[in-house]
């Protein structure tokens, strides 16, 4: 609404100015750009002001402060504290890009980044493939379709931490249901969360389980928007089911799938609860992703290393922004209007 109003006002105002000039009656010189923008768009600015203010407070300030902390040596012992009668001023200092140099030249950040990428790529690709299969299956008419749809959306409807805890019980090596079932079948128990490789597998499995409903629902919506005439025409031309999928369904889903892949990548990259609640990054540091490690710096080790934690946070932000830009570029070269 606001945008619309301002545009029409701008046009009208522009006309005024033009008329004024053409008359040449010695009016004062045209107002400066800023003043004109203000006088013309004041209504729009007033309307967006609260939003700008709120965003500034809840996103802008923490972001700026995070970037600032990453350029200092702030930790738990040198930040300002005021506890009862004890007043302790801040004594941390500006250290420039030292934290970034340390992070990018050390092995810890790069090692964690490697596993974070493996985790993101495998989670997103498996979730997408499963979601696609399920969406296609549920797009057909069959008895009890809505019941199936409901059941598949269930993981999404349960609060994340509840399902992650449920999985943690299932994975328990001695008392967990999974190993009891395996034991019943005469198979040795699997150290789901105790062996580094199995732990990696286990966290990915849980994240896929949590992520499939979203993919499925989004793709199902996309499928329903593909006109059925296309399928009918293809069938007339003798296209096989695979050809129909390859040349109608996939291109038809493109706008939806590119969006969900981007979203899912960003979410998975920063999927804190699954890792934290299942393994806390363990065993050792086998399943530690960038965000859980940043959390560890800031809340679990002592003295809490706020500087390093914010450095990692800023690096995560930069990586995701780079990803979004590159992704958009690639899509644009392929003809999507993003």
């Amino acid at each position: 609404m606001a945008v619309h109003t301002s545009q029409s006002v701008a046009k009208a105002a522009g006309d005024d100015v033009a008329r004024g000039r053409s008359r040449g009656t010695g009016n004062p010189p045209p107002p400066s750009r800023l003043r004109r923008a203000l006088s013309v768009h004041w209504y729009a600015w007033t309307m967006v002001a609260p939003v700008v203010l709120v965003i500034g407070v809840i996103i802008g300030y923490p972001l700026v402060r995070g970037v600032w902390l990453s350029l200092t040596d702030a930790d738990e012992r040198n930040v300002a504290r005021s506890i009862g009668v004890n007043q302790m001023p801040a004594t941390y200092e500006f250290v420039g890009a030292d934290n970034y140099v340390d992070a990018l030249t050390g092995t810890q950040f790069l090692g964690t980044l490697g596993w974070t990428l493996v985790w993101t790529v495998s989670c997103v690709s498996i979730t997408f493939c499963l979601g696609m299969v399920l969406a296609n299956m549920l797009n057909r008419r069959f008895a009890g379709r809505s019941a199936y749809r409901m059941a598949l959306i269930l993981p999404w409807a349960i609060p994340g931490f509840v399902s992650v805890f449920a999985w943690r019980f299932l994975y328990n090596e001695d008392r967990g249901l999974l190993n009891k079932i395996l034991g019943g079948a005469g198979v040795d128990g699997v150290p789901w969360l105790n062996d580094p490789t199995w732990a990696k597998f286990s966290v990915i499995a849980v994240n896929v389980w949590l992520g499939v409903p979203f993919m499925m629902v989004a793709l199902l919506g996309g499928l329903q928007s593909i006109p059925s005439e296309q399928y009918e025409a293809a069938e007339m031309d003798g296209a096989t089911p695979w050809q129909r999928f390859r040349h109608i369904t996939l291109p038809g889903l493109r706008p939806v799938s590119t969006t969900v892949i981007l979203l899912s990548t960003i979410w998975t990259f920063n999927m804190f609860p699954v890792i934290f609640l299942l393994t806390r990054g363990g065993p050792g540091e086998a399943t530690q992703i960038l965000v859980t490690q940043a959390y560890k710096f800031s809340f679990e080790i002592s003295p809490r290393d706020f500087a390093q934690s914010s450095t990692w946070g800023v690096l995560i932000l930069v990586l995701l922004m780079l990803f979004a830009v590159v992704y958009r570029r690639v899509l644009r070269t392929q003809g999507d209007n993003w």
Partner: protein
Amino acid sequence: MRRGITATALVAALALAATACGGDDKPEGGKSSGELSGTVTWWDTSTVGSEDKVFKKLAEGFEKKHPKVDVKYVNVPFGEAQNKFKNAAQAGAGAPDVIRSEVAWTPEFADLGYLAPLDGTSALKDQDDFLKQAAASTKYKDKTYAVPQVIDSMGVFYNKKIFKEAGVEVPASIADLKTVSKKIKDKTGKTGLYLRGDDAYWFLSFLYGEGGDLVDAADKAVTVDKPQGVKAFEVVKDLVDSGAAKTDATDGWENMQSSFKDGKVAMMINGPWAVADTLAGAEFADKANLGIAPVPAGTAGHGAPQGGHNLAVYAGSENLDASYAFVEYMTSVETQAQTAGELNLLPTRTSAYAKQQAVDSEIVGFFKPVVETAVERPWIPETGSLFAPLVTEYTKVLTGQTTPEKAASATGDSYRKLLKGWK
């Protein structure tokens, strides 16, 4: 000054209250009223389901002595309490008045300025009565920041029934532990030892047993990466690899307790804090089935860590006077005797050991000499920080992700980063 007078008045009032009537709470200093009021929030970290009930009852007993005080008992899981308290204390909101602070946390909290100094307040009473080892962790830079509540060490808990079935004796050394475990496995099919793999505190008795230590505070040197440290990592790795012990990288406490309580493992290394919970298990319906012995000796001898808990007062508390009095009450001889009797926890006051309840507890009797010879950690602010790097490497060793040598040197490196300027 005002506080000083109130403090003395409180001590006097408490002494009177303890005798009988407690009617006269008029301070000798002539101040109008020394009666305590307001709310005291206490964060307890004792084991839920067993210890917490007793502590809650005891804490509420304070209200009987001071009817105007409202004690709010909150049980915070031990594993989370350190971080929760730091979050709340730093934010200046939501922190309790009194916290049960583990011995290694106390100097750290004090260093961060979160704790109120207790010297000259009513919280400290009969200071000479406290065991020396217990009082050591409450001092930081010549001030007292906490009052010792319980003291503990570790021992081997064993299931006598399984031992009888397998025909084995309690292992005295780690070599014995391996043969005993093997016999138990052969005869009963059960695992010998449960070794917690997700908490480095359980590694300490092996480290001390090999003659190693985390750091040497007197020398300002990191010692965990010395050959003894490497040896200790080798010992625990060998115990797990050989099948003598089983471990977990997550949920260690629950898994340890339930497998021991259900008789799936014959032994665990644990401390007095686990006794009440263990005795609630199916295998220990007959309490006599639980045996406790010193931790198996390494090549350098027995070496159990000395631990315990203190009660500390948050510096930002709005009700300091009542908090001091509460701390005094919770660490008094009577309270300690009661926890010794009901929970088999070890008192920190010498005189409490003479009380009947403490004398009657076999477990207190067993742990008393163990505590006296237990290895004390240096009470520097960083002591509480030494576990985070250690547990990562410890779990890595147990799950085969690194070698003992690499683990020891990685731990040493992070300690040197933490302790600037140490060797």
